[in-house]
Every structure is written in C-alpha cells, then in structure tokens.
C-alpha cells in the first residue's frame, strides 16, 4: 500500500504540472488568436503528419547516429586517458591544466572551427559532439581515480596482486560509478550540441527540422513538436544511462 502510494506521489504531481502547462498554453493561444503560434492540438497533428510520411524518424535517426558516433569516440578516448591521468601523477600535472582550460569553452564556440576543418557535412557535428562530451568524461574519470579510497588501494597492495588484477579488480570497478556519472554528463551535452550543430548547415536531424520548419513557411507547430521530441529523447537517453547505475557492481556507490 505504502509502495503504491509513493509511486502515485511520484507520478501524479509531474503529470498534473505538465497538463496544467498545456492547458494554460491552449487557453492563451485561443484567447490571443495568434496566427503563428500553434495550439497543442496543432502541434500534435503536425507531428503526426511528419511521423506518417516518415521524415520525423529520419531526422531522429540522423541526430541519434551523430550523437552515437561522437559520444562513442569521446568515450573511447576519455576513459583510458582519464584512467591514465588519474593513475600517473606526471600525466595529471602535465595534461590537467590544459583540459581544465578547454572544458569551459562552449561547444557552440567551436562551430566556426568545425566548419573550417570539416566542412558542412556529417563530420562537423560529430566533431562538436566529441569535443563537448570528451572533456567532462576525462575530468570525471580522472577525479574518480584520484579519489579512490586509500584503504582499498592499501588492501590491494597488502595482498600483493599483479598489476593487471589491481586494475581489473580494484581501480576500474572503483572508478566505474564516476565513469557512469561522466557518461551522463557527456551524453547530456552531446544531445544539446547535436541540435545546435544541426541548425547551422545540414539537411537532416532534429536541429535541421526546427530551422527548416521555421524557414519553410513559419510552421511553428513543427518547431514546437521538434522541441518536445528533443526533450523526450534527452530524457530517455539519460534514463538509459541511469539504468547503468542499477548494475550490482556499482550499486554500492549509490546506496546509503
């Protein structure tokens, strides 16, 4: 009984808030008789038409593929690099200042550079996503290694295990929760950036869909629909990475 109560308590209020927001939106648009800004229903029908002719799925797929490649590459670079920087003090003192300096630069600021280097094809957004997500993941992994509780490293040293066992059984699992946090941050910014990047100079993706809908006849119903879809997919991506937190081997970090 308690269990269902708390579940209800977690589902009902947010649904109510969203429903209220939609109601206000509807009322305001209906009253003001705005010729451009759509009602919620127009947004739904607009999105439905796009979904029917398949273009919506193509755009979603284009965005997801770009994020997948850019984020995947960033992950492959960031985790080994972060582990190395965290473990070897020389590497940390040499590289950390550089990464700390590059990290606060907004990925949007890289757009001109990306276009200069990679043109307006698919490579530019992939590069931008890579740039956006690689630094948080490096930093998170590095910090994770450097903050491994000393007692665990001492226990490992005490049992005199080989270097490979030390890494596989102690260092990596100890850092894994931090890596997952890094992935959540990285994937979050990757999704922010792909939309921004696609608004610049592409002909596919959800960012492109937004710009195209506006330019091709002020289809604000599609603009709003795209925004909502972007939000929902972002939520799903975050939910997917959060599933990783349920793994038995990282749960220790999140309980108590």
């Amino acid at each position: 009984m308690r269990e269902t109560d708390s579940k209800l308590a977690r589902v009902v209020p947010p649904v109510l808030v969203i429903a209220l927001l939609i109601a206000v939106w509807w009322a305001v648009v209906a009253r003001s008789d705005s010729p451009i800004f759509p009602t919620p229903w127009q947004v739904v029908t607009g999105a439905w038409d796009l979904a029917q002719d398949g273009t919506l799925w193509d755009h979603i797929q284009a965005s997801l593929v770009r994020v997948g490649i850019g984020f995947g590459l960033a992950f492959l670079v960031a985790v080994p690099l972060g582990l190395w920087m965290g473990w070897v003090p020389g590497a940390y003192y040499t590289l950390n200042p550089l990464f700390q300096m590059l990290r606060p630069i907004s990925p949007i600021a890289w757009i001109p550079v990306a276009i200069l280097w990679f043109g307006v094809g698919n490579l530019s957004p992939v590069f931008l996503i890579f740039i956006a997500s690689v630094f948080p993941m490096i930093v998170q992994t590095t910090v994770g290694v450097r903050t491994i509780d000393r007692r665990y490293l001492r226990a490992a040293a005490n049992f005199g295990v080989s270097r490979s066992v030390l890494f596989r059984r102690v260092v990596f699992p100890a850092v894994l929760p931090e890596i997952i946090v890094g992935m959540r941050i990285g994937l979050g910014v990757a999704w922010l950036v792909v939309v921004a990047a696609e608004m610049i100079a592409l002909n596919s993706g959800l960012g492109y869909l937004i710009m195209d809908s506006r330019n091709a006849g002020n289809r604000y119903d599609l603009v709003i629909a795209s925004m909502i879809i972007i939000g929902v997919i972002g939520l799903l991506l975050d939910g997917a990475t959060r599933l990783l937190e349920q793994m038995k081997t990282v749960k220790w970090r999140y309980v108590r």
Partner: protein
Amino acid sequence: MSTHPHKITVDGIGKSFGDLSVVGGVSFDVRDGEFVAIVGPSGCGKSTLMNIIAGFERADRGTIRIDGVERSGPSRNGIMISQQGSVFPWLTVHENLMFALSGTRHGDKEARAHRYIELVGLAGFEKAYPHELSGGMLKRVEIARALVVKPEILYMDEPFSALDALMSLRMQTELRRILDEERHTVLLITHDVEEAIFLADRILVLSPRPTVIQTSFQVDMPHPRKLSDPRAQELREAILKELGL
C-alpha cells in the same frame, strides 16, 4: 619456519606529522605465534604505529624487521584488518576472497575460499555484495579474507569496535577459536581492555602523544578465559590504572 627468535622486531620507531610528534620512540619484539594487544588513549598514535609496522607508512626513524629482515613495504605475509574496513564493495563475498587468493600459490582456490567463508559463518552469502550485509557480517568477511591467504601475521586495528557489545563478544570468541585452529602471530589494537585480556598473551599500554610504551603486562591464563576470573579482574584494574582511570 622462522629460525630467527623474533617474528616482529620494532626498533626505535618515531614518527611526526609536521609539528605533531605522534610516535616517540617505540621498541618491542613479538615472538612467532604470540598474540600482542596494544591499548592506549584515543589519538595517541596506535593506528600510525601499526601502519608503520605493517609497511603502509614510513617511520621518520627506527626500523621494523620481520623474521630479522628489514621491512620496506606491505606484504602478503602480514595482512591488515583496518579500523575502517576495506572489503571491496564492488565485489561479492566470494570474489573478495578470490581476489585475496589471486596473488598466492594456494592449490584449489575455490575450495579454500568456500572453507573460510564457512569458517566465519557466512555460508550462503557467497554471492552477496557488502552493502547487502550487516556490519558484523562485513567484519567477518574482512577476517575471512585475511585468513584465507594464511598470513604469518595478522594486524588488527580495532576490528570489532564498530560492532555492538554482543556482536563484539561473539567475534572475539570466534577469533579465538580460529586462532586455536591456525597459528598466527597477531598484533591487535583495541580500546577494550577486556577484549585484550580475553585474547592476548601480552598487553602493551601506550602513553599519550608522542606515544611510547608505558607498561607491558603478561597474561598468563589458559584459554578459554573467563573475565570473571579474579586474575583477569586484577589485571583489568591494573591496566585501567595505567590508562589513568
């Protein structure tokens, strides 16, 4: 195994942290198979001293010799059971023991791991993760993980202090039973004088910081000991008096 008369030789150990002088020149020997308990006021430097003996920290002066050989770092033949506990939370009970065994040449590691899990009464919890265990069970995992590699020396830093009184008593009895089965040289830090009397062959009382050995008591009573024994009571009074109570 050891032809040398002393298992552990602590020789003139001193240690400061910045301006804070913590260990002020400690020397003692531990015989092979002897159980030495160390008591002393909180913050006097017991853990620091033990970390130095076990090889985790460097002394400013003095040397530690194990079987007559100067020690330079931690080693598998002396396992530490630390005050905060160090069972890996990302490994199951069984995996923790297998981790400990991975550096050793023991035959049939699986069977060995199982035997020691049983020994500490955790059969059935092999696949449990530490956060699924109680505090007392976790401590038993730590003890099993230390014993499974058959270390010559056990370093125990207040191993039972986080447990409630009943659990602590139970663990003391269990530890004593295990030690009667397998001979280890043990160095135990405790703030519980009765625990020291119940378990140890010799009790060292440390002074406040910078700590030195204030007195040493021999405990000449056969096991299993009863704390109600008048000799135990007398010893308890004497030790408490040394601690200023």
